């Protein structure tokens, strides 16, 4: 039983009558709109005309061979999913078909279940690839038009506030009610806060990149950095019905770092962990030693980050695109700042996420031990000043 909104089109190209019909039966039951062709030339015309999402091609056919059909379909529509079926299955033909643009390969004879599994798997992969491509294009466009984008981000709140004030001035003597006026003034304050936050983040990012943000490198016990987080972020967390817990080991966790930069890094991670959490969720900040490094982890119990979007997380202005997070405010710069600070501190930052369960960001910092002083010297920053 299909849950597809609109029947997606499938083209089957096979010279074997019985095979065409059984493919049609299986695919039609999956909810596809199936068109059959008995040779390569007609099949290619059909593909050009029908623009199917999926093309099933038999490799051994008279006339235009299956391999050429695969290559031509792939050329016409690189996103069409091409499945190859054949009775003469060898590794070589499979590899050749994949090179020509096929997604997968199904040796005859096959069961209806085998076809179903392979079709679903291929279409799933197609939508993942599509999504990733769209995101990449989006990020690429952002890079190309960076100045335009930044100025848009800066001007939007300013325009909104100006517009409110302009309209308020005009309507003040007449129809705008007290309640409406109060609401608009409140919105003006929210938008100016948003603008200030953006400018602050933008400056922080610029200073980290310019090398003037991480200034000192002194021994810091990470336990001290995280100890008072539940108290410092308690109000903010309570407003979202989120609880913050800290797990510190009994022994010191010494690293060489700039305390202020560390605080900014942790601040960004914890603010995100609260913001992208669920009501009654938790944020756990923990420290653990692994060999020569200390791992500071901030784990939330939120909606998680779709896998296809994770590679862009640390890009400037990237924000996770989902219905759950669409309306949440944010500059899109927090994680870019974290990444740059981590790199200045000689640390690495990683993300692990499960959709619907939560996300964990962990920062691995070099541990201060007599053994790795050399590594620390590499991360030190005094020589910059």
């Amino acid at each position, binding site marked *: 039983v299909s849950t597809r909104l609109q029947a997606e089109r499938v083209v089957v190209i096979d010279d074997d009558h019985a095979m065409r019909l059984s493919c049609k039966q299986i695919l039609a039951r999956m909810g596809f709109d199936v068109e059959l062709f008995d040779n390569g030339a007609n099949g290619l015309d059909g593909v050009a005309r029908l623009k199917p999402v999926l093309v099933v091609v038999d490799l051994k056919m008279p006339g235009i061979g299956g391999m050429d059909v695969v290559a031509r379909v792939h050329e016409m529509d690189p996103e069409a999913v091409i499945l190859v079926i054949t009775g003469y299955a060898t590794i070589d033909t499979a590899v050749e078909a994949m090179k020509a643009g096929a997604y997968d390969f199904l040796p005859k004879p096959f069961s209806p279940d085998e076809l179903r599994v392979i079709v679903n798997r291929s279409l799933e992969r197609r939508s993942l690839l599509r999504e990733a491509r769209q995101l990449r294009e989006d990020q690429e466009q*952002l890079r190309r038009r960076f100045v335009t984008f930044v100025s848009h981000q800066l001007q*939007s709140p300013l*325009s*909104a506030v100006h*517009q*409110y004030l302009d*309209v308020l001035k*005009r309507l003040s003597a007449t129809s705008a009610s007290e309640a409406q006026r109060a609401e608009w003034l409140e919105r003006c304050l929210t938008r100016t806060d948003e603008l200030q936050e953006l400018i602050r983040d933008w400056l922080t990012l610029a200073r980290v990149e310019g090398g003037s943000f991480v200034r000192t490198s002194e021994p810091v016990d990470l336990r001290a950095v995280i100890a008072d987080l539940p108290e410092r972020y308690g109000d903010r967390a309570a407003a979202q019905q989120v609880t913050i817990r800290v797990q510190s080991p009994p022994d010191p966790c010494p690293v060489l770092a700039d305390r202020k930069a560390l605080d900014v890094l942790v601040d960004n991670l914890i603010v995100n962990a609260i913001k992208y959490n669920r009501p009654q969720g938790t944020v756990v900040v923990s420290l653990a030693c692994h060999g020569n490094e200390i791992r500071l982890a901030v784990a939330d119990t939120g909606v998680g980050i779709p896998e296809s979007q994770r590679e862009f997380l640390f890009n400037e202005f990237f924000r996770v695109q989902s219905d759950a997070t*669409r309306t949440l405010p944010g500059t899109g710069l927090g994680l870019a700042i974290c990444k740059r600070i981590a790199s200045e501190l000689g640390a690495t930052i990683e993300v692990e996420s499960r959709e619907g369960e939560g996300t964990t960001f962990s920062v691995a910092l070099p541990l201060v031990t007599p053994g790795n002083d050399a590594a620390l010297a590499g991360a030190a920053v005094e020589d910059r000043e």
Partner: protein
Amino acid sequence: MKKVLIIDDDADFAASVSALLQHSGHYVLRARDGTEGVAMAAAEKPDVILCDVMMRERTEGFFTIQTLRRTPGLEDTPILVISSIYETLPFFTAPPERSWLHHDAFLRKPINPDTLLEMVQAAT
């Protein structure tokens, strides 16, 4: 009185502009993105459409305007493009009859209330 459709993902901008228009006796509809805007325009046939350019998908406004123009019954509806980024988009400042977007005018955010009211009033 005109029926005005505002397509803008900035709720604050839409709220203030719609209050201004309502105060002057116009009837205002609001859509939060291009998809919603096209559907509303097709159903409601507004007298004039205000459309933002940089919405959620960043280029969404371009596609929205093109789609509006291709929608039966909306081919000639006046479209006022509103944005805060026109410096880098020369085709917006070109005379509208030469622009491939076929919009009717370009207004920079924030919009001067008098200019907006005049343009909405004059739109036919």
